[in-house]
């Protein structure tokens, strides 16, 4: 294989993994606070469609990203109200949000289905982009790739190096104890859920503005569910989320190249399209095969509603 093709595949891999990283980082914070939001697919769909509409109407990708962020956040407020204030079942509420979001996205995006956005130019990072080989893959990317790295750094720093991150983890592990020392469990959880929703919306918007760049019904294609699975199998740690997302992107791009190239493949195309999902799950399951590992790392109060007794 010549080196140009390898560069192309690797650089496309980073691009394909990026929406997943953004969404999964949001869900990670969300779940670290003890709230399980299965509505990721719906929030990503809504972010994608409203992000696209905004980017199209204002002809500015930045407006689109902001719209995705805001729409995801607003949807998450509804979810937070149901599960935190009204103490509804988190799993069922999340599924309702997934169905609702995908449906509303299909409805709202219908008039925009045949439109497409101009492709956004790559950003060349000065000096680094001139590095031989690596520069082309890592530092001549779409802006959203850099955005995902910045977000990764922020989430990592917040979780492990800041007081508020410690409080967030405490709320996820034992909301009763956090409440007893006078911290607002509801407040922390609301913020975490809104952050998670906003990043899911942003991830969706990245998908429709930078990656596609267009909107069709079913654009998200299960990426919300994959992001949720990533967080679990990454045992709630940011670095593994990054690895898992790039793995998904890699297999996605590899099978696209395989289908596009002239190589005779005897496997049906549908099976190849299913491959990225399958490969991600299989590899992540193998990595975290030890059930003790999952149990030790999962936030202890994940999925349980908390009620502050007066």
């Amino acid at each position, binding site marked *: 294989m010549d080196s140009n093709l390898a560069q192309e595949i690797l650089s496309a891999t980073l691009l394909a993994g990026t929406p997943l990283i953004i969404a999964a980082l949001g869900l990670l914070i969300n779940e670290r606070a003890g709230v399980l939001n299965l509505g990721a697919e719906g929030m990503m769909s809504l972010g994608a469609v409203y992000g696209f509409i905004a980017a199209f109407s204002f002809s500015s990708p930045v407006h689109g990203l902001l719209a995705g962020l805001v729409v995801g956040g607003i949807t998450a407020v509804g979810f937070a109200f149901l599960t935190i204030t*009204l103490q509804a*079942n988190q799993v069922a509420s999340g599924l309702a949000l997934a*169905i*609702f979001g995908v449906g509303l996205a*299909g409805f709202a995006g219908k008039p925009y289905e045949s439109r497409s956005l101009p492709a956004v130019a790559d950003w060349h990072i000065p000096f680094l982009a001139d590095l031989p080989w690596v520069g082309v893959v890592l530092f001549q990317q779409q802006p959203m790739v850099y955005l995902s790295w910045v977000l990764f750094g922020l989430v990592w720093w917040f979780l492990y190096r800041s007081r508020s991150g410690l409080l967030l983890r405490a709320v996820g592990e034992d909301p009763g104890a956090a409440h007893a020392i006078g911290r607002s469990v509801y407040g922390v959880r609301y913020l975490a859920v809104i952050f998670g929703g906003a990043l899911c919306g942003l991830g969706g918007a990245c998908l429709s503005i930078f990656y596609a760049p267009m909107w069709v*019904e079913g654009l998200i294609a299960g990426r919300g569910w994959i992001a949720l699975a990533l967080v679990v199998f990454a045992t709630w740690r940011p670095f593994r989320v990054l690895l898992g997302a790039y793995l998904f992107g890699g297999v996605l791009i590899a099978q696209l190249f395989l289908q596009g190239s002239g190589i005779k493949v005897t496997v049906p195309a549908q099976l190849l399209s299913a491959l990225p999902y399958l490969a991600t799950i299989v590899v992540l399951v193998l990595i975290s095969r030890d059930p003790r590992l999952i149990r030790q790392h999962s936030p202890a109060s994940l999925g349980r509603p908390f009620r502050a007794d007066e």
Partner: protein
Amino acid sequence: MGQLTDKVALGYGFAAIIVAFLGRLHPVGVLLASLLMALLFLGGEQVQQHMNLPKSISMVFQGLLLFYLLGADLLVNYRLKWNG
């Protein structure tokens, strides 16, 4: 339908979850709830035919139905008290 397409069971799995919750996790309730859900699906098809709206509008209604159901559970499980 008498034909097989890759979208033959579109959304039925998720709808089944709503049916289970709507039936209050009771076998007889599920029977009744599934009838209500069938109405939503049929309504979605009608809306598509007569008003040119996309079929996904029926998913919006399914989602809202489950939202309201779960939210209203609060009134079943707790008594509201206003502290003035």
